[in-house]
């Protein structure tokens, strides 16, 4: 059976953690098909962290070192991936900003079908059948794919798991390419922020906060929880309180964290669609009839200005106890 190609992501010469999820997802599919996994790593030079890929199930690690490919460059990456995908059963990317830009380009170069943001994949005879949320998660679609299937896997849907394989590193010689677009720089914010789509914990605020300054309550809780991203409802993004990159819901991001805390968010259908796949949902709202409580595992009815600071304190205490 043809191989699986897992396309890795690096930033500043270090492999991104989401890549472990992609290798794990590729390994699971490869085991079902009885085939091998190649992890493709593209960078300007050696990329830190590739020695871990064998542990997550990569049989081979194909490296491309090209001076023009330190930053993500769509045309160079797509050219390398399409060449490495020759004869593969599937090409798997992460459904990140980079992966979602790259995957359709690879598919077009291969003349293949592309299923975006999949949350599962099974095998049906000669075909792969991918499951993917559509209508912002209000429904799940199953698509049967013929030939090489290009897939992007939604972050946080496949927990990285150890499955030791050789992880033999081989240099991959990519074809020449013409860059049609150039990524000239990545502007990082003054303070590094976790992205809601990738974080294991998301704390989101809504209109119940009343004033944009009150988002400090959300930030404090997120800081206490650790490794948590700050999200926002559409209402407060549209009001200009928070950047669109933080918006959770149908016209924002769809998230699947381990823990989602909704503060002062009533739970409009578009918002619920964006976070209902979170593993555990906590809602804090003063209105006991708010729709958010219908999807929440745990709810507290009350004034968020009293509940949230207390929660931040209790989380800190719990963390201190270990």
């Amino acid at each position: 059976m043809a191989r699986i190609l897992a396309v890795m992501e690096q930033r500043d010469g270090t492999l991104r953690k989401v890549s472990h999820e992609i290798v794990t997802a590729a390994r699971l599919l490869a085991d079902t098909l009885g085939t091998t996994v190649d992890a493709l790593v593209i960078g300007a030079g050696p990329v830190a962290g590739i020695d871990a890929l064998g542990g997550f199930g990569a049989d081979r690690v194909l490296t491309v070192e090209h001076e023009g490919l330190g930053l993500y460059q769509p045309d160079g990456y797509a050219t390398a991936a399409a060449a490495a995908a020759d004869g593969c059963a599937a090409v798997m990317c992460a459904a990140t900003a980079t992966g979602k830009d790259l995957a359709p380009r690879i598919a077009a170069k291969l003349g293949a079908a592309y299923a975006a943001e999949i949350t599962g994949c099974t095998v049906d005879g000669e075909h792969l059948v991918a499951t993917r949320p559509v209508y912002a998660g209000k429904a799940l679609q199953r698509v049967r794919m013929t030939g090489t299937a290009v897939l992007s896997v939604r972050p946080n849907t496949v927990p990285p798991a150890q499955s030791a394989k050789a992880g033999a590193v081989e240099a991959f010689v990519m074809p020449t390419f013409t860059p049609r677009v150039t990524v000239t720089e990545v502007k990082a914010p003054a303070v590094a922020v976790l992205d809601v789509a990738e974080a294991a914990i998301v704390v989101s605020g809504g209109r119940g906060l009343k004033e944009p300054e009150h988002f400090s309550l959300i930030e404090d809780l997120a800081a206490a929880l650790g490794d948590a991203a700050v999200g926002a409802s559409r209402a407060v993004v549209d009001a200009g309180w928070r950047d669109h990159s933080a918006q959770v819901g149908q016209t924002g991001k769809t998230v699947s964290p381990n823990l989602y805390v909704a503060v002062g968010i009533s739970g409009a259908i578009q918002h619920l669609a964006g976070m209902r796949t979170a593993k555990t949902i906590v809602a804090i709202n003063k209105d006991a009839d708010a729709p958010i409580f219908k999807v929440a595992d745990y709810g507290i009815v009350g004034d968020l200005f009293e509940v949230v600071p207390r929660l931040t304190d209790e989380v800190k205490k719990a963390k201190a106890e270990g």
Partner: protein
Amino acid sequence: MKIAVCLKRVPDTTAKIVIGGDGKSIDESGVKFVPNPYDEYAVEEAISLQEKAAAGETVVYSLGGASSQETIRTALAMGIDRGVLLEGAGSADGMVVARALASELEGQGFDLILFGKLAVDDYNHQVGAMTAELMGLPCITTVSHLEIENGGVVAEREIEGGVEVVTCRLPAVLTCEKGLNEPRLPKLKGIMAAKKKPLEVKPVELAPGNMEVVGLELPPARSEGKIVGEGPDAVPELVNLLRHEAKVL
């Protein structure tokens, strides 16, 4: 500049989704359809670029059934010059749609081809980039800031924890993200004018692709949760549950 905008008719984001009798599509009865919200950023960008240049032409394309004419008229009412409906059944396979669009747009001399970053029905976010690839054009996706000067494009796109700055030359394909602009609402004058603007209908038959929808279902319902309590006094119990029951702390 000659600018094309590709526009899709989709269910309103507030629509409740009911699975249709075929088990593969939605039940459209009673569902309100609207122009795809991300495509509206593309429509707005095209119109404002044309206004700034005080020259050029804007054309909106849609692929879908006859009812997509209404969606095209909305774009015409906002200010797009003319519309083309590629009338036929759409496809869940983005490559199939991209092939049809690329063959239609090829050789028309567009400087800029704009898409929304994704359609809020099938969430494929692929047709723009695929169309560009098939046409051999530069493509920048999920653009949230755009400057075009002397045939050069400087765009910004959000990535995890930062913003990528991407450049290319025209002609190019761009897909638009929320934040790029504020789409205008059609004014009465525009709505009246739109009725007289040209809307060409061309039948299109899509070639078969490599992806077929075999099922559509509602996500598993979340089991009803519990209200831990009222007010700040409920917090210690919540933390206890998160630690020992949900095991997420």
